[in-house]
């Protein structure tokens, strides 16, 4: 086993994923172009973002062909960020309410 063996896959899959990434990016841009608002906008943004991120990591970065030990090592720790995101949301809300009380919305 030498390191030069590496990841060897047919070219077709790269072109397919490449095309998909282009299409998904176009869709993301369309969300803004057509001025979708509110929950629909946020939902579409998140969906296209996660799909693109997943395709890049899985195929372009070869994660789907790596051994599970490496996959877990890289994918599991970032899940903690969801907790951080929750804390950030609580904090942001709290600061906003405090500012509304003390500045009445007009700083």
């Amino acid at each position, binding site marked *: 086993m030498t390191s030069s063996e590496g990841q060897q896959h047919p070219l077709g899959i790269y072109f397919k994923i490449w095309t998909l990434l282009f299409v998904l*990016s176009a869709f993301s841009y369309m969300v803004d172009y057509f001025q979708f608002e509110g929950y629909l906008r946020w939902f579409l*943004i998140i969906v296209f973002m996660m799909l693109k991120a997943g395709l890049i990591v899985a195929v*372009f970065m070869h994660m789907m062909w790596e051994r599970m030990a490496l996959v*877990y090592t890289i994918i599991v720790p*970032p899940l903690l960020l969801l907790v951080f995101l929750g804390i950030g*949301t609580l904090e*942001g809300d709290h600061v906003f309410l405090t500012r509304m009380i003390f500045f009445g919305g007009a*700083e």
Partner: protein
Amino acid sequence: MTQSAQAAMAGAPLLDGTPGVIADWSSDQSAFKKTPWGKVMMWIFLLSDTFIFSCFLIAYGTVRMSTTIPWPNPSEVFALNIGGNHVPLLLIAIMTFVLITSSGTMALAVNFGYRKNRMVTFWLLLATALLGATFVGMQAFEWTKLIVDEGVRPWGNPMGAPQFGAIFFMVTGFHGTHVSIGVIFLFIMAFKVLRGKMDREEPGFMTGRKQDYGMIEIMGLYWHFVDLVWVFIFAVFYLW
């Protein structure tokens, strides 16, 4: 561990699935089978970089939620006027496509590297580097437009919440720095390939270790990560 024990271990079949995770992690010294150490180290670095960028984006989220002054509309701020037509977010869309194109050429470069196709690998790496440089150039244009024409500063701007500038320069600046470093290394790697360093497995000038086409894949991991970060910045900063 004795030599015979090592030999016995090398010959043992590797388990798959969850038992494989446990066996790999508990196997002392070499947890990551069939993965060159350089690639593992790049992944660990990218994991730490993930946390850095996530901290920026979560900080951006709390700042945007907590301001009582309306946030400037990114769709308007980054719009371009093309022949009298007002196109929202056009420059950012083009930058996104440039970066995705470069990600594609990078993926192909990795593939042709493992096929030991020296010239095709070189041209693909060069194309990736030039697309990356184009991205940085467009970002420089965007910064200039915002600073000079729109009067955006890290402490305030005419469009709304003063935190907008601070977050914008911090996040895109950090990402742009990553792209710039990537472009430099892509040029270095492209010329290493062109000179046949990988084919002859010459020792690297800094590490003294044998160079091979696996290095292109490690370079590729970094470059795809830069694209990955842009996907998140594009979604939560520009589109939100």
